[in-house]
């Protein structure tokens, strides 16, 4: 699978958008809550780190396909995603429930 080389600029803007969601929106972090949010159709966008175990990644993608929710593969591992969320722990997958002021949901799906 040829991955489109993400330029530094778009990567930074994703981080900015994520920071805005953390500040103003609603989100949940972690595999269990991501699946919960998908089942209850509350999740609007799922972000998965690149070192998420492939079985778990496939499972989340399948759930998201059933729920018709976009999945974004974050260009970084769980440590980076945790940092991008402003947390001091690793985050492998997260679900955005309410984007708040951010336009992350409009700009991201359609991409990876």
């Amino acid at each position: 699978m040829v991955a489109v080389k993400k330029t530094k600029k778009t990567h930074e803007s994703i981080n900015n958008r994520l920071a805005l969601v953390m500040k103003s929106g609603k989100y949940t972090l972690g595999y269990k809550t991501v699946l919960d949010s998908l089942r209850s159709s509350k999740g609007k966008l799922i972000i998965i780190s690149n070192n998420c175990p492939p079985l778990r990644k496939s499972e989340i993608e399948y759930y998201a396909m059933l729920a018709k929710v976009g999945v974004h593969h974050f260009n970084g591992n769980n440590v980076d995603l945790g940092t991008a969320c402003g947390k001091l722990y690793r985050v492998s997958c997260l679900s955005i429930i309410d984007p708040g002021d951010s336009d992350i949901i409009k700009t991201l799906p359609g991409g990876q």
Partner: protein
Amino acid sequence: MVKFLKPNKAVVILQGRFAGRKAVIVKNFDEGTRDRPYGHCLVAGISKYPKKVIRKDSAKKTAKKSRVKAFVKLVNYNHIMPTRYTLDVDLKDAVNVDSLVSKDKKITAAKAIKGKFEERFKTGKNRWFFSKLRLHNLLYIVGENTDSSIVLVEKGRSCSSSALLLEALGVSVPVYVDQMFL
């Protein structure tokens, strides 16, 4: 953002006695109840799949091989894997929550479902639902080179239940990069 855990959805049970069996959702309890304060659903599933029928079989043998044993169960959402398939069989009149209260009610409900399942199986529709989840010929990719030039596979022996089931669902085979094989 679409609710997909709805009645008539085909699911695979992941835990418990019926792990690996296919079932269909009859009723959802998204918010849970007082006894079960978590999201769960009432499912009707296949306990014993119908066996493979061949042309040589006599009518008596075909009838025997096409038998289905059904079960009724309340399952936690965490213990099922939803699929993209549905099975539109009207089970609501046959099964409801109070048929799980006592054993004989459960048996009558299971018999009613068995009839409906057998009827549907004989029409030849919903073939996926009535076929056993084929776990014995799954390949479990153990290692792959960084440039994807070498892929080592191993016959799946003791993979976790969800791994096996995801593969059987036709989701892309998971790949693990194992340092030893590089």
